């Protein structure tokens, strides 16, 4: 059994009451909750999940309800998200898998880290076009005509390394949106963003800009 499947099963069995889960084949597990239909989740150790990989998993596991990127740093490309959601499947990290099991809606579950912030910005009326390039990167076009590439930074208190690593992984952004409402970016993070040519913002500041 692959390492990520073993950890996922352990996590489900230890933390979710009345849920039974077992390994089926390869990276797939079956999840059973009393009173609900059996569900299939595929636990991937990929660093990046693109549309090609999502299609491959779907082809291999045709009854897949949820695709889980178990690696903490797993990156989801926008096209993979569109493919999975378009085919009525859930996607996301281990937290999203647990939430989906608990709510009885694995097919509707999405990556927990970015769920609320993505929903929030999707509802801003001044945004005329929104393209989700990655799970945490969106490109928007405002009614004013301005284009912005925004990165969603989930860390509680973003550090200089978080900002630099984000830039290295996803390319230039205009705004590093610190989506965790509780913490604040460090002074070194703000300085790193300045050096790179972007700004770190909390929602209040970003909302005014939009």
């Amino acid at each position, binding site marked *: *059994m692959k*390492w*990520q499947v*073993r*950890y*996922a099963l*352990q*996590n489900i069995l*230890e*933390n979710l009451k009345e849920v039974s889960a077992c390994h089926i084949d390869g990276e797939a597990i079956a999840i059973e909750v009393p009173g609900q239909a059996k569900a299939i989740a595929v636990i991937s*150790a990929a660093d990046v999940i693109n549309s090609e990989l999502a299609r491959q998993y779907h082809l291999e596991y045709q009854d897949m309800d949820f695709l889980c990127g*178990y*690696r*903490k740093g797993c990156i989801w490309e926008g096209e993979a998200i569109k493919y999975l959601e378009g085919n009525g499947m859930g996607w996301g*990290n*281990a*937290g999203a898998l*647990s939430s989906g099991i608990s709510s009885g809606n694995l097919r509707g579950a999405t990556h927990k880290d970015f769920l609320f912030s993505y929903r929030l910005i999707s509802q801003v009326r001044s945004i005329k076009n929104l393209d989700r390039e990655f799970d945490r990167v969106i490109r928007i076009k405002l009614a004013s005509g301005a284009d912005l590439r925004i990165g969603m930074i989930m*860390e509680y*208190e973003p*550090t*200089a*390394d*978080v900002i630099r690593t984000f830039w290295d992984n996803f390319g230039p952004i205009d705004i590093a949106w610190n989506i965790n409402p509780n*913490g604040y970016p*460090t*002074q*070194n*993070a703000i300085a790193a963003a300045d050096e790179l040519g972007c700004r770190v913002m909390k929602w209040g500041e970003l909302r005014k800009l939009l």
Partner: protein
Amino acid sequence: MNPYMTACEVAEYLLISCRSLREFQSYMFGSSLFGVGSDFDILVIGPSGEPLSRVKSELEMVGRELPLDILYMLPEEVIETKFFSKAKCIPLAELAKYMKTESLDIGMCLLSISSTN
């Protein structure tokens, strides 16, 4: 490597496998200390630049088959965020040491570490 490791085993494994960690202070924090949660939260404190690139690259390699969530901080960022007062952090070296005792009590370990900080 055992694919199913406890917090203490992970600490020992990282210290043995990642030589660059010796240039940094390293801790584990969060729910993984108590055997819950889906990953191991690791805090690495030290310089930026080449040493940071080195330790990141090494940890990425040795942690390929572990659910690690690693936070890298500069020493001044730890002070600015008051990280130690917000999160219970145990040095990896202490965790590895406790692994060698017959019965591990993380609660006692936390008390022991916090009394020395």
